[in-house]
């Protein structure tokens, strides 16, 4: 027998009034995987992401992380299961320095003895922000703030990392660096990345799950998915027709 999947959802649904934002989704991610979630606006991927992080409670179905149901768990308890989460808009301790931000993460997960050392390594080697270590987070550029948050998540040394649109608002070299960073992180942690930007997906993705109308449309490797007719249809069709992103 192999280990149970790191994340597993069974018949997961959440309904907001009459709207079936996520409907009977069966989904799993194993150790070391890098999974991208895509889909048109309103497909339910962000809502699904929030179900995984415990922000929304499911109407029915279960989410298991590391074999353990997260029903009723608080955010911090989910974090303690070894899940690192990066939200869409960078969420940092704005008035604290980069070092302090990352130290707080290392301190929680590795104790005070190791915290400084881990924080230093993450800052200088892994996210490459050494020269900003003592800069207040609020003073950094948007891209830098995204990387700091990646660093914060990294310093947890989680088994699983959930990233919500890590490349949002980035262009060119910033996006390049982010993609590199994600690949590097993936060497030690499994990842689920919700992303809009097809260009970015092409750079990082291995397996892709496509959402549409709250359900899983296709799940396959990136080239197959991109070649799939149905995916093109929902993507192009929906892009024009529907303007609201229900999940976000």
């Amino acid at each position, binding site marked *: 027998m192999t280990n149970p999947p790191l994340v597993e959802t069974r018949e997961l649904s959440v309904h907001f009034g009459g709207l079936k934002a996520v409907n009977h989704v069966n989904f799993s991610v194993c150790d070391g995987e890098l999974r991208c979630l895509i889909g048109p606006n309103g497909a339910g991927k962000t809502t699904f992401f929030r179900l995984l*992080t415990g922000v929304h409670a499911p109407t029915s179905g279960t989410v298991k992380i590391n074999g353990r149901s997260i029903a009723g768990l*608080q*955010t*911090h*308890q989910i*974090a*303690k299961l070894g899940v*690192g*989460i990066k*939200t869409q808009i960078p*969420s*940092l*301790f*704005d*008035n*604290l*320095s980069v*070092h*302090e931000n990352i*130290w*707080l*993460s290392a*301190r*929680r*997960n590795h104790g*005070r003895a190791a915290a400084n050392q881990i924080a230093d390594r993450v800052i200088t080697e892994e996210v490459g922000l050494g*020269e*900003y*270590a*003592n*800069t*207040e987070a609020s*003073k950094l550029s948007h891209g830098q703030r995204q990387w700091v948050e990646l660093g*914060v998540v990294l310093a*947890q040394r989680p088994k699983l990392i959930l990233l919500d649109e890590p490349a949002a608002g980035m262009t060119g070299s910033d996006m390049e660096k982010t993609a590199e960073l994600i690949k590097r992180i993936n060497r030690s942690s499994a990842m689920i990345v919700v992303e809009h930007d097809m260009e970015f997906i092409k750079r990082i993705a291995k397996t892709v799950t496509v959402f549409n109308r709250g359900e899983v449309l296709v799940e396959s490797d990136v080239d197959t998915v991109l070649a799939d007719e149905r995916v093109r249809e929902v993507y192009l069709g929906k892009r024009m027709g529907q303007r609201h992103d229900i999940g976000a």
Partner: protein
Amino acid sequence: MIGSRNYWPIAAAVIAALSAIVVLPAIYDEYSLLQLTIYAILSVLALSLAFIWGYGGILSFGHAVFFGLGAYSYAIGAINFGETTIALLLSMVIPGLFAAALGYFLFYGRISDVYLGAITLTVTLIFFNLASSTSGPEYRVGRVPLGGFNGIPSIPQLNVPGFPDWTLSTTELFALSVATLALVYIGLRLLINSDFGRIVVAIKENEVRAELLGYDARKYKLVTFVIGGAIAGLAGCLFANWGGFTSPAVFALGQSVQIIIWVVVGGVGTLAGPVIGCVLIQWLTNSLASLNTVNNNLIMGGILVVVVLMLPQGLVPTIARLARGRRPVQRLDAATKGLGGASTKSEARA
């Protein structure tokens, strides 16, 4: 900003307190000592809110509840037991326990923001109403009638633990109050500099992020709240000692407002600021009492409006900024200091 890890402020506090205790009784008359005593006691109260609001991010509109509970607990304990050591402990334990219960209700119910303000305000009004309606002879704890609106008079002075007959003189109460102020200041400074303190500040900065890292924000807020409540209770005990009375006025909305004003005027997010704010405002209130020409409310209200509009950070941070010449790099400088490391590079860059 997370507190600095240098210990000069602590050394300064020790020296200031020791010299105050040694020198002032020699040069001031009894009246001035009593005045200084009340300033020191209320400064302890100011520190307790400075901690939970400025560092814990919890703005309670009913902070006076803990102060009042401390005063009443001490009064009831001291009159019942005769010896005051247990009463002194009670004055911290009971407000602390109440803070734990209230904090559990608030933080584990995920109540924050104006809703927290509304509930704490309501709680203090309930205490005020209940305490005010205990004037009947049936309301007594042990042999102490609660006294309703009139409160409890003739509260015994603290005695040296184990020596019921050695009650504190004016000078000794002064020394005790100043020492308490210094100790509370030092204790809070150490706490803020500790890992616990850094986490508390981080939760204030971004609660969601802290939770995502696995910190149970509710727990940290609760502990912060309990510490603040216990310190406020201690201030209440000293207050009951100073005046020898306590009345429901300690629970009044005005008392809670006053504490907030001290902190706002001095500077939220500092410890020295609220102490200075407290002393300034108290001194002003006192001076106005002898003037009889200008209405006190007029002045206090004016000060609060002007401070919020003109000095939104409060006196101490504003003065500190002016003293540093308002160079923008100084904020970075402060950030650097926060980590105890130096990085001249980042200064140059920003």
